[in-house]
């Protein structure tokens, strides 16, 4: 093993460090430490001349390890690594001692601070001894993309990618594209025609040279997992209309969408028993058919709309389905236009008109001749029952009105239940297929709820649309495109960089206890049955090192944070104070 030649560089940072730390003294002292070839101090190491010093010294003294004592590595580690690279040294042969943010800026006694700085630098030197050169790992990216689900989200994503001239495989469970959006008559808040919007998109998709659509398609199981491979290169076999196709692709976009809540679960509303209690899904059909009539063919004189059916209630779904309120307002307008004389009662709990133009639609609607009523969405839900025979109407809704405190009854010929959104029953299966996880509400979990709402913990797999959480069309579309952006970026670069500081298994030492597998948050470690050891998938590994600390035999080492490196860092850190300490001990005895 080649001898270690370490260069140590201590930064003044103007006066920031030099005020509190005796820089010159330290640099002299460090000279004496083992393997330190050269030790210098300079006003601004980060400045270009400062970097030049390092570069030249590396060439001149054949240094192969560098320690810089300056500010926080979070600020300039990358800068100095670049410097090493320019000097032809592996960037990981570098360690930084943070003597500004952690020493000179936070302490008041110069001697103490200097002492601390010494310890930190010594630690860095001790650590850098054990550094090893690490090579960036690159995986190529297959330019094709698989999109699961042909709803509005899937279509938008597909178009976005295909219009960039990249191949897209779009697989859809049912026989037609468009999903829920295709079943809608008008879209809120501007009441534009959904059909005209989606038909255009569907046509473009069907005739697009870069999109191959597979209808009635499903993914065929292949040794347990349906989609095998890693970011950049996945492969799977799909079964569409009987015939099987083998697909290779670099990214996966999951857009499996939603399923409406089953209103029969709410007994109070008697959906399924009372013929004229319909769900919003049924009512969309009625609207598309053009004539609004009850099941027994009469023109309804009173129509009631009930919100939050299956949403915002622990007994069904605790979450809010986000779209029902506005859809209800849309219905009010459509009914009013078709049947101007019909009385409409809108029974809600909180009117969630939050999108662009939504509050405006709310106030337009409320100017119409209709009635808003409020109910408690948690306990004692409204009770719908058949009206008595002589009543001129068909149904009677009884509940306690929240705003007036009166207990009231509402006549209705037709009741529309605004059913919420739910995850598909096979969500779990899909999650398993693509290697992502579900949240408590059985929606897919994104990597970060705020800053990364489309990516998942598995690189190359993205979730968009209502399978991630309830959404309206605009939000689904922009999410779909967000995912497309990621895909396109990776395709344009043509390669994905893989985390370097990953874990790796020393197979001689590994006893195959599989503890590591249980602790890994990224399912990056798998147990290979034939050689009876764990194997790390370095592309999935993010290098948190949890496994190596869990490993009983020390077989797993996480690169750049090996036990040796950290332990020697500790020793180096203590070396100075240790000797001092022994003195104290002696004095005491």
């Amino acid at each position, binding site marked *: 093993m080649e001898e270690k030649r370490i260069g140590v560089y201590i930064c003044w940072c103007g006066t920031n460090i030099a005020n509190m730390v005796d820089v010159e003294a330290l640099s002299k002292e460090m000279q004496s430490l083992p393997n330190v070839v050269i030790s210098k101090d300079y006003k601004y190491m980060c400045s270009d001349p400062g970097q030049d010093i390092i570069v030249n010294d590396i060439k001149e003294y054949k240094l192969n390890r560098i320690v810089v004592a300056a500010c926080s590595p979070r600020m300039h580690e990358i800068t100095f690594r670049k410097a090493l690279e320019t000097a032809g040294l592996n960037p990981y042969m570098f360690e930084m001692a943070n003597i500004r943010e952690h020493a000179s800026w936070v302490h008041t006694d110069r001697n103490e601070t200097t002492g601390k700085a010494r310890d930190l630098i010594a630690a860095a030197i001790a650590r850098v001894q054990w550094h090893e050169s690490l090579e960036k790992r690159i995986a190529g990216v297959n330019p094709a993309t698989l999109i699961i689900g042909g709803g509005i989200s899937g279509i938008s994503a597909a178009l976005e990618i295909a219009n960039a001239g990249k191949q897209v495989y779009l697989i859809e469970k049912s026989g037609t594209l468009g999903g829920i959006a295709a079943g809608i008559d008008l879209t809120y808040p501007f009441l534009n025609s959904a059909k005209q919007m989606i038909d255009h998109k569907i046509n473009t998709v069907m005739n697009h040279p870069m999109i191959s659509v597979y209808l009635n398609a499903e993914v065929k199981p292949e040794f347990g997992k349906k989609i095998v491979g890693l970011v950049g290169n996945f492969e799977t076999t799909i079964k569409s209309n009987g015939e099987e196709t083998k697909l290779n692709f670099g990214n996966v976009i999951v857009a499996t969408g939603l399923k409406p809540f089953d209103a029969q679960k709410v007994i109070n509303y008697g959906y399924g028993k009372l013929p004229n209690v319909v769900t919003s899904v049924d009512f969309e059909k009625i609207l598309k058919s053009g004539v609004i009539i009850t099941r027994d063919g009469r023109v309804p004189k009173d129509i009631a709309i009930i919100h939050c059916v299956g949403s915002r209630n622990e007994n069904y779904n605790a979450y809010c389905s986000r779209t029902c309120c506005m859809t209800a307002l849309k219905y009010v307008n459509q009914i009013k236009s078709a049947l101007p004389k019909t*009385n409409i*009662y809108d029974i809600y709990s909180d*009117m969630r008109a939050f999108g662009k133009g939504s509050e405006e639609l*709310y*106030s337009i609607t*409320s*100017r*119409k*001749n*209709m*009635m*808003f*009523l*409020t109910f408690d969405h948690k306990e004692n839900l409204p009770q719908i029952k058949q009206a008595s025979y002589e009543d001129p109407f068909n149904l009677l809704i*009884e509940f306690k*009105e929240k*705003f*007036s405190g*009166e*207990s*009231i*009854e*509402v*006549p209705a010929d037709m009741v529309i239940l605004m059913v919420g959104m739910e995850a598909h029953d096979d969500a779990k299966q899909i999650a398993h297929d693509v290697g992502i996880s579900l949240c408590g509400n059985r929606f897919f979990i994104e990597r970060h709820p705020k800053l990364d709402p489309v990516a998942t913990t598995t690189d190359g797999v993205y979730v968009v649309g209502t399978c991630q959480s309830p959404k309206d069309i605009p939000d689904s579309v922009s999410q779909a495109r967000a995912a497309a952006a990621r895909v396109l970026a990776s395709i344009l670069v043509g390669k994905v960089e893989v985390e370097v500081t990953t874990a790796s298994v020393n197979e001689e030492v590994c006893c195959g206890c599989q503890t590591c597998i249980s602790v890994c948050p990224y399912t990056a470690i798998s147990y290979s049955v034939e050689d009876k050891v764990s194997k790390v998938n370095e592309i999935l590994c993010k290098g948190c090192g949890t496994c190596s600390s869990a490993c009983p035999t020390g077989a797993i080492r996480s690169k750049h944070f090996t036990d040796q490196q950290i332990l020697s860092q500790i020793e180096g850190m203590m070396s100075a104070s240790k000797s001092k300490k022994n003195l104290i001990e002696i004095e005491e005895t």
Partner: protein
Amino acid sequence: MSQRVNLDLKNELFLYGAKEWNQCFQCGNCTATCHTTENDFFFPRKTVRQVLMGLKKSLQTNIDPWLCTYCGDCSTTCPRDANPAEMMMSIRRYLISVYDWTGISKLFYKSKALEIAVIFLLAIAVMILYLFFTTFPSGDNSQWIGPDGGALINKIAPWKRIHFGDWIMAGILIFLIITNVFYMWYKIILEDKSIKIGFIDYFRPVSALPKLFNPEKKYARCDEKKLTVYWILHLFLALSYATLFTIIVFFLEWFQTDSVYPIFHPQRLLGYIATVGLFVGIIYFYTNRTIKNLENSKYSHFTDWTFLILLFLTTLTGILLHFFRIYGMPQLVYITYLIHLMVLVPMLMVEVPFSKWSHMIYRPFSLYFAHLKKMAIKKQKIISDEYSQQN
């Protein structure tokens, strides 16, 4: 017993001058702004709600609209431009028609034409009676002019006869008012099963009477800057009106004299002050309603106008009559007197029991009832507290 909601009530109220307020989203801003609302009677939101939901029963037994002083703050700050204040006024009109058991006021409110027609009919009736019972000052003028130069009005239209007419009219009016107030009492107190008011309780608030019968006082709590003038003039108008009304109906003999008293004689002084009161008041309210500078004069139902106009004409003719009399012009006296009566009588007959005027009676009473209710509620609270303490 659960009430059935009903969209039509709201639409019915449009006839009583209600404006756009279906867009109310029940934020409660109006109630919180309101200066007069208290914990037992909070409005306008609750009342608005009753209307929007069409809870006729609760609305008819609702006393709150009478407590509103229409300072207009709720309307100016309303986030949805639902102007609750004007709606309270509309409900007042509605309630007037509810309390009026004859149902005539409902007709008046709903059709402008009918009201005007009735006014004309009454006017003509008055004319006929007048021509029948009075004598036109024909021939030599001197015999119609008294020693001190004033026209002998009692010779033209003897006060006894006028007075007789007055009494008949007053009788009718008082009968109507009393019965209406009783009906109001029935609606507000009896139909409200939640509270109990014993016979004796009705006499408890006597101490508070002066407070109750000066409703304008409540304006003071409202935003002073813009409304002090308003409520002072309103009070002035109301008082002058009351004085003249009482004088004419009960002391006509003392008021309508042939001899012209010196200017500082209480008869003339009183007459002048009251007239000024009326006149200024009318002009003020008239301009308010035309230039709409105040929140409470932004919207006007036609009944508001008819009342103002009739009152104005009455005052005007009254003034003319007076001067014609003291400057001794019997013919003109004869004619103006006729016109005066032709305006006065319809105004009283139409407005007093059936329209705007009647709030002069209902408001004090409503305050009285509100007071009763408050006491009752307090009592119940105490009882229930004791009860809860016991176990």
